[in-house]
């Protein structure tokens, strides 16, 4: 079982946190630091705030306990131990969990994950950066997937707000991208055809609504 060894982490806002070795090792970065001999004193994490580290530790603890309980079920094997495959990205050739206990564990984990990652956008971005710096693959994947699902349906303007990005296209370049390129949703001819159809009212209400929703930024 896990050794009694304990490490102390210090965040950028000066707070300290004590964690078990097994929990610490979930972070490749911390693991490397410990193995390089930096574990005796405080391990400084100047890039992580206490609020975020709390979340990270929560994740790491869940990871460790999940691994322990998976070892107990008949399907427990080494593959779950590795950081890289804990949050198994959906596989192209899925393994079907036939063992009931294992199934229940997987279900519970999914629910826990959903609740865990249900956080606001700024916390999510901070968590993403922390997971990247601390090299915790499973957490990184979870946060990135959540971020992707959050921005998927946004308009470009909303994206700029979310990521604090400046629109550095000139008005001409912008029009260019919108209309000219074949990679756009509509070629200029198609766009023209659609405008005409709208004018002649050739769309069914559903079609019109569908186009509006899909191309809100193109037409409006």
């Amino acid at each position, binding site marked *: 079982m896990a050794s009694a060894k304990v490490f102390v982490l210090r965040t950028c806002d000066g707070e300290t946190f004590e964690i078990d070795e097994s929990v610490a090792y979930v972070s490749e970065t911390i693991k490397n630091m410990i193995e390089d001999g930096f574990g005796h004193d405080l391990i400084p994490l100047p890039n992580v705030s206490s609020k975020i580290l709390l979340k990270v530790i929560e994740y790491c603890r869940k990871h460790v306990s999940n691994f322990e309980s998976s070892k107990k079920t008949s399907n427990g094997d080494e593959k779950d131990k590795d950081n890289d495959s804990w949050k198994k990205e959906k596989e*192209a050739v*899925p393994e079907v969990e036939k063992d009931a206990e294992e199934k229940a564990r997987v279900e519970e984990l999914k629910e826990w994950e959903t609740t865990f990652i249900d956080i606001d956008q700024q916390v999510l971005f901070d968590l993403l950066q922390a997971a990247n710096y601390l090299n915790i693959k499973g957490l990184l994947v979870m946060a990135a997937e959540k971020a992707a699902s959050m921005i998927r349906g946004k308009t470009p303007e909303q994206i*700029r707000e979310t990521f604090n990005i400046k629109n550095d296209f000139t008005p001409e370049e912008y029009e260019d991208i919108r209309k000219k390129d074949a990679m756009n949703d509509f070629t200029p001819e198609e766009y023209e055809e659609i405008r005409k159809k709208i004018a002649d009212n050739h769309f069914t209400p559903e079609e019109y609504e569908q186009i509006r929703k899909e191309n809100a930024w193109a037409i409006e």
Partner: protein
Amino acid sequence: MAEFTEKITEEEAIPTKNLPEVLIADILSRLPVKSLLKFRCVCKTWCALIADPAFVKEHLNRSLASNSNLSLIFRRCALFSVDLDTCEQRAAVELDHPLKSPHLATEVLGSCNGLLCISNSDEDILLWNPSIRRHHKLPITPIEFPVRFDSPRLIVYGLGYDPTTDDYKLVRVVQFYGDSEYSCDSEVKVYSLRTNSWRRIRDMPYHLSYERGFGVLNNSWRKIRDMPYHLSYKRGYGVLANYALHWVAMRETGRDTASTFIVSFDLQDEYYREIPLPDFVDDEFHMTVGVLGGQLCLLCNFFRVRVEVWVMKEYGVRDSWLKQFSIEQPDVISSFMFVRPICYSKNGDVILDKDSEAPLLLYDSLRERVRNLRIRGAPDRMETEICVGSLVPLNAKDGTEQPAMMKKHRKHKKRRFMEQRAG
């Protein structure tokens, strides 16, 4: 306004209000193509990122590895498509494709990394990426082999990707049948998108099983073991797995007997090989080859009794053949002649094409049961294909030959079993 931080190392990862580009790229690589096309106009950095070949590759790899961004393509003269993940909730819509014509039926010759190869005839073939709406017309290449007026002709195609040259290739195999039932001559040509040209290569020394043939000059039925095969059945396109195309071939094993086997055409070294088959206990079946989740599979059709689906878990390794499941011909579901796996659904069930007609079949792996899968808006008779949404561009050669991209003929000593490519 704050600017983007450039790609930074771990030591410098100060938590900023803005995400570093490497994380942005990670997030974007999980989005569907439609969103990415929209986001090109967010700013110049994003525009460049989304068009960057490395990003396109990462996005594609992620889609393939996670079985996402997939669409079902239905073909019945016109082309229809529906997202795999919502195929039971949403209706299929007709695709507006560059070869669309009221008089001609469009075939799908292959699907690879988001590119579809479509054609209205042997002279009218396109590579088309329906997600980004770009296409490229292939030059016409004649059949050099002298046509014998009365010998039936089989023309089959296969589309695939060559990772050593980062090139998309279309293979055309033309076979003429001689006097003896199993003798044939062939002409094989390979088209490379990178050079935008066809090349004739060594002939295929195998007789392709023609029951999926098309283009027979005389409209006759051919029989094997008293089973008539419908000529309207789908063309025998090459099955893509592990950077190779596969067909079922036949060889004579005695007078009036033949055995079938799988021939592969490696897109990298352009050699033909035979794929070892499992040791079948009962071999009174009709065999076809397919691909499921990027893995080569065999369909063993015990007509009117059951169909077994065998999957080669490790490409090229004979012992890795696994009988994944079998579908009995129950009374509940109407009987079928041919079954072909299309893909895994999002929860691990297997979607299969049955006799090229609606409805599709859904095999529930957990409960080991089959049910019908009806897709609204899909035609009643159709061929089904899978296509991944990708940003893969169709940049064909623009006239300048670049030595770095010339094909390297390498004899592969070791097969690459990882990274299946399909769809």
